[in-house]
């Protein structure tokens, strides 16, 4: 019961959706399933929030190291949740002012908007900006030309890095637009760094990415099949009825 029913559910859903791709009549089914899926995704957020709550409360009650920070997390969580759900500071829809709940929850000037604009935005952007620093440190300490493969990778990276800035104009801007030999169409200016990086992107990166994509597409297809056929049931966990 605990394992067979889920296997059945996923197999039926999956194969039905594969089938509807070819039957115009039932394409709507797939759409319906997707609309439900979106709702489940929204409920999954609640699940995530609940998990977070559980974890932080455990930390606080056990007085683990740094439980104060867990309390900060909880306070931030509840305050944001409250101002968002209660639409604090949000005006009603100007067309229907008598419906006080009809406004947009993210209205500019509202409390939830303030949390988004002045806390969420800077924090998430700065987190990613930190990576620029880590890259600089990794460039110095980790990116080594250990073997042929890594060497190729680094050389190409340097060409593209230079080619995508004005440095290409400084270093190789003087290359004339003249054919190197015959009428073949290859000119000196093709070796300008920006052209070179464009050629790398167009002609050398494309086949690599295509092959990776073809491989991953097949991998996804066969993995999906394994899931639908019940060969791969790791998503069910192995804690019960193993």
């Amino acid at each position: 019961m605990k394992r067979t029913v889920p296997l059945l559910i996923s197999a039926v859903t999956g194969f039905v959706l594969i089938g509807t791709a070819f039957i115009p009549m039932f394409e709507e089914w797939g759409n319906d399933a997707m609309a439900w899926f979106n709702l489940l995704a929204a409920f999954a957020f609640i699940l995530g929030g609940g998990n977070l709550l559980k974890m932080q409360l455990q930390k606080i009650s056990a007085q683990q190291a740094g439980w104060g920070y867990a309390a900060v997390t909880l306070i931030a969580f509840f305050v944001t949740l409250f101002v968002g759900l209660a639409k604090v500071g949000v005006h009603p829809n100007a067309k229907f002012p008598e419906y006080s709940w009809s406004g947009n929850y993210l209205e500019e000037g509202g409390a939830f908007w303030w949390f988004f604009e002045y806390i969420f935005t800077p924090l998430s952007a700065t987190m990613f900006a930190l990576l620029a620093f880590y890259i600089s440190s990794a460039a110095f300490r980790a990116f080594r030309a250990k073997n042929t493969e890594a060497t190729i990778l680094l050389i190409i990276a340097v060409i593209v890095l230079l080619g995508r800035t004005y440095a290409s104009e400084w270093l190789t801007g003087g290359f004339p637009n003249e054919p190197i030999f015959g009428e073949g169409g290859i000119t000196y200016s093709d070796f300008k760094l920006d052209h070179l990086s464009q050629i790398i992107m167009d002609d050398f990166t494309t086949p690599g990415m295509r092959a990776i994509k073809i491989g991953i597409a097949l991998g996804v297809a066969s993995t999906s099949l394994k899931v639908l056929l019940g060969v791969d049931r790791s998503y069910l966990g192995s804690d019960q009825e193993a």
Partner: protein
Amino acid sequence: MKQSTIIWTLLMVFGGLGLISVQLFRGKGEVYVREVPVEAKSSSKTSPEQTYRWSTYQEVSAKEKDDPGISFSFSRTLGLWVAAFCTLAIFSFLYGDNPLYKFTEAVFVGVSAAYAMVVGFWTEIVTNLYAKLLPELARMSFFPDMESDVHSDLLYLIPLVLSVLLLWRLAPKGNWIARWPLAFFIGATAGIRLISYLETDFIGQLQSTVMPFIVFSADGSMLWFKSLKNTVVIVGVTSCMVYFFFSVEHEGIVKYISRLGIWFLMVTFGASFAYTVMGRIALLSGRLDFLFNEWLGI
């Protein structure tokens, strides 16, 4: 120990300079708004005519601060300083883990979790579930302009039930039931992905790669450059596919072809590496731009 002192000093000097410059260029680090009055007439025909008034505020540049109708906004100025504080606190992690960073990180975790929940609540649960199941109530509460002939769509009971089952996972007992909606999720994604990946990534990529090795121009002469390009792409795709072929050992000719394939992959990674690096630096300059321009106004 010595160098860290220097870094610290530099950071302090920078922070100090920032504050001084804020003082020098008055009006920087402050936000001004223009008041826009809103006058809304009650929409219902039955109730007596009633007018509702409130104001919204629009951010304006500090240059206009002396214009009429422009006022200083405390909440937004505070917000700007909070944002700057958050940015600096995260950057402080580069020096080393510290309470300031830990505090902001804790705030971040809480705010982002709540943010996702609030957005999901208003946009999905209210708009696509509540309004579909109970259109009458939805019209009375959140969506006054919904059309009155919409009837409740009982089909949406199914996702509601599935969602409740999913939330069962939080319950102490019987959380195996959460696997049912999860199975629905996984089955649906598996089915949709199988089709879409095969269509776009398998068939689609093959279709764009099928092209002649040699290209002729309209007058019958051979286009060397174009032909070379095509050949490189075809050879590249094929050799990479050989590298990913697991049924044959990498021996003999296969060894060389797959070697070529891995080189193509490395070129791909090199380029993708460079692009990622560019992206991260752009993010950093975006943040610093915020600090220098919006906050400090240098």
